[in-house]
């Protein structure tokens, strides 16, 4: 049986084990005078038996499937003639690939030499053997599990507690995987960034004012040695994020206040879904809106005022990112505003405050920490935004404070550094990881502050 059928069989067995375990426990219950004399409800004995049946077998199946290719490969190589075994690694890989192709199609097999055909036959034999052992082992384990599990059913056996414990362990492992993934990502970025800092001093990277990551590929090439000063990138990032927040914070906040405090239910029922659609538009679509509509508009407007506007500008990108973030801020603010207890509002009205005064003096101050938290989360999004910037703000790494100029951001540079054919150990590509690390640290700090602020806010209404 292949792994999929085996898995399905295993699930079927586990269901049977559940039914069997439950039945056994019911029998025990009858013998000892009713279900309430059992330690746990019958279904827990069922779960316990099913776990004994399924869990060990599942683990073995998983391990086997993971280790099988490597073990088989080793066996296969060992069976090959010595001259093939001594091939350099890359050629050996090609050779093994060939074998797998031959094993997979008769056409390929006709053109192959005897050595290869022999090896293929050996490979197939080994695969069959492995599958056979795997099936046998898993099924035996599953059946043994049922027998063992069922044999443990007795009046005083604490099935509920065992099931709870297993559940807890499974939950713990799942969360462990998420944590490990995070740590793994951080470490990989960190190590690549450290390699970059071997080639380029940290100081030059953090405080250098020039960004031009082109390096000569070969020593005889004419070309710059590259400059990796990240300041222009961070400047561009900050400028775009600032423009975006300038748009998004007031609009989002006022939207939230209007919708939660003043709007009629009918209008709210219409406006909220529209805002949610705004949040669901892919950023690429925002990107061409920025590049094709907003940027030219700004250009014409700027020119009519006699200003020189680049066809791609920080302003265009910033405005569109701002629009993109409005629903993010408005829905978060709406939540925290609605979390302000109704009693606060009534208390204020009863003292003779108008609605606007109540919003300004009671609701906003009470909701402020939550709003600030939401805004900080939105800032991280603005900083991380890539697509809109690529399309609307350009690629030029310029030291400028003029929002009408083309600028570039950290994320955009990461994309350009890593797309296309690249050597993965040149400073140019490694620079992407250093930038990624910086970005990660920045957004991490923002998020930590945001979470701290939000938590403080929660404590207020304990």
């Amino acid at each position: 049986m292949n792994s999929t059928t085996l898995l399905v069989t295993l699930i079927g067995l586990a269901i049977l084990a559940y039914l069997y375990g439950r039945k056994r426990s019911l029998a025990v219950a009858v013998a000892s005078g009713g279900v309430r004399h059992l330690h746990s409800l019958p279904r827990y004995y069922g779960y316990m038996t099913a776990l004994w049946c399924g869990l060990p077998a599942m683990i073995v199946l998983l391990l086997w499937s993971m280790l099988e290719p490597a073990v088989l490969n080793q066996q296969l190589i060992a069976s090959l003639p010595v001259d093939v075994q001594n091939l350099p690694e890359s050629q050996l890989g090609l050779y093994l690939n060939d074998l797998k192709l031959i094993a997979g199609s008769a056409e390929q097999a006709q053109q192959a030499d005897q050595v290869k055909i022999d090896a293929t036959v050996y490979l197939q034999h080994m695969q069959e053997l492995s599958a056979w052992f795997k099936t046998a082992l898993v099924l035996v384990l599953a059946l043994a599990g049922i027998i063992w599990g069922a044999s443990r059913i007795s009046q005083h056996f604490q099935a509920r507690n065992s099931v709870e414990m297993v559940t807890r362990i499974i939950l713990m492992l799942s969360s462990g995987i998420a944590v490990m993934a995070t740590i793994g990502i951080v470490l990989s970025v960190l190590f690549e960034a450290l390699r970059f800092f071997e080639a380029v001093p940290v100081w030059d990277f953090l405080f250098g004012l020039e960004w031009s990551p082109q390096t000569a590929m070969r020593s005889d090439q004419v070309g710059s040695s590259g400059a990796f000063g990240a300041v222009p990138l961070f400047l561009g990032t900050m400028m775009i994020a600032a423009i975006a927040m300038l748009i998004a914070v007031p609009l989002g906040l006022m939207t939230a206040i209007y919708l939660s405090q003043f709007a009629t239910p009918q209008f709210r029922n219409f406006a909220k879904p529209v805002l949610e659609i705004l949040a669901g538009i892919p950023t690429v679509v925002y990107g061409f809106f920025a590049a094709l509509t907003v940027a030219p508009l700004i250009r014409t407007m700027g020119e009519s005022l006699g200003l020189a506007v680049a066809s791609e500008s920080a302003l265009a990108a910033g405005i569109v990112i701002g629009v993109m973030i409005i629903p993010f801020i408005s829905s978060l603010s709406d939540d925290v505003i609605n979390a302000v207890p109704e009693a606060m509002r009534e208390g204020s009205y009863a003292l003779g405050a108008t609605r606007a005064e109540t919003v300004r003096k009671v609701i906003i101050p009470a909701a402020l920490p939550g709003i600030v938290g939401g805004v900080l989360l939105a800032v991280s999004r603005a900083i991380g935004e890539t697509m809109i910037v690529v399309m609307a703000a350009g690629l030029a790494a310029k030291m400028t404070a003029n929002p009408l100029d083309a600028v570039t951001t950290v994320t955009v540079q990461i994309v350009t550094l890593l797309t296309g054919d690249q050597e993965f150990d040149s400073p140019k590509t490694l620079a992407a990881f250093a930038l990624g690390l910086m970005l990660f640290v920045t957004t991490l700090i923002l998020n930590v502050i945001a979470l701290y602020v939000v938590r403080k806010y929660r404590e207020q209404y304990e």
Partner: protein
Amino acid sequence: MTQVIEAPDIHQAIKQTVGSPFTHKPKISTRNVDVFYDDKQAIFDVSLDIGSHEVIALIGPSGCGKSTYLRCFNRMNDTIQSCRVTGEFRLEEEDIYARGMDPVLLRARIGMVFQKPNPFPKSIYDNVAYGPKLHGLASNRAELDEIVVSSLQKAGLYEEVKDRLNASGTGLSGGQQQRLCIARTIAVSPEVILMDEPASALDPIATATIEELIDELRQNYTIVIVTHSMQQAARVSQRTAYFHLGKLVEVGDTNQIFTNPQHQLTENYITGRFG
């Protein structure tokens, strides 16, 4: 043996309010009040006067419309969309529901204290100063200080909090919070104070403090208090009005209501047959 009257008969049983709903020179007079939530009627043809400087208790089983009626006085029901009020409400001679009456200004004259203490998440000082600032009652900081201190004193809270006026109002105990809310209400110098079960969320000691306070406040204010505790009504009020299913069944001197109720329903309630 008294017989408990079943619901369908009750509207029959309450044809007219028993007792003396009207007073000479009332502070607030209400006539033929009906209140609806959408199509559901919550108050049926209630007429009642509130005398100047008296404490009147509104009692009755829960859901009988005490809060609904109380919230008509300062037009708090305006904030509930489905709520519709008809009938006549007068604060002395002024029509409370007149077109020209600004509910915001009205609420400065008729203050309200709620069932659950609801101090703002601001400092004690700012909680009390909130109303005076809104209505421009103080022209400088010294006057504001004066208002805050005297309001806290009148609410019997000043001695307990005088060293921490800048601490958060939400950090006080339940009873202190409720007195803070009373101080906050007093600070805008209302003529009438409405209280909706002001002590129901408090422990017995805090309740006793609030009750003493209500007795003192009668000197300066007219007080309408909703309560589900008959002992409380008996302790703090001069008149008592008994509501049942949205109707005003009986009004009279508190003493008389509790010792010699005229209406069968009132007697049933007083003697604990329902509620």
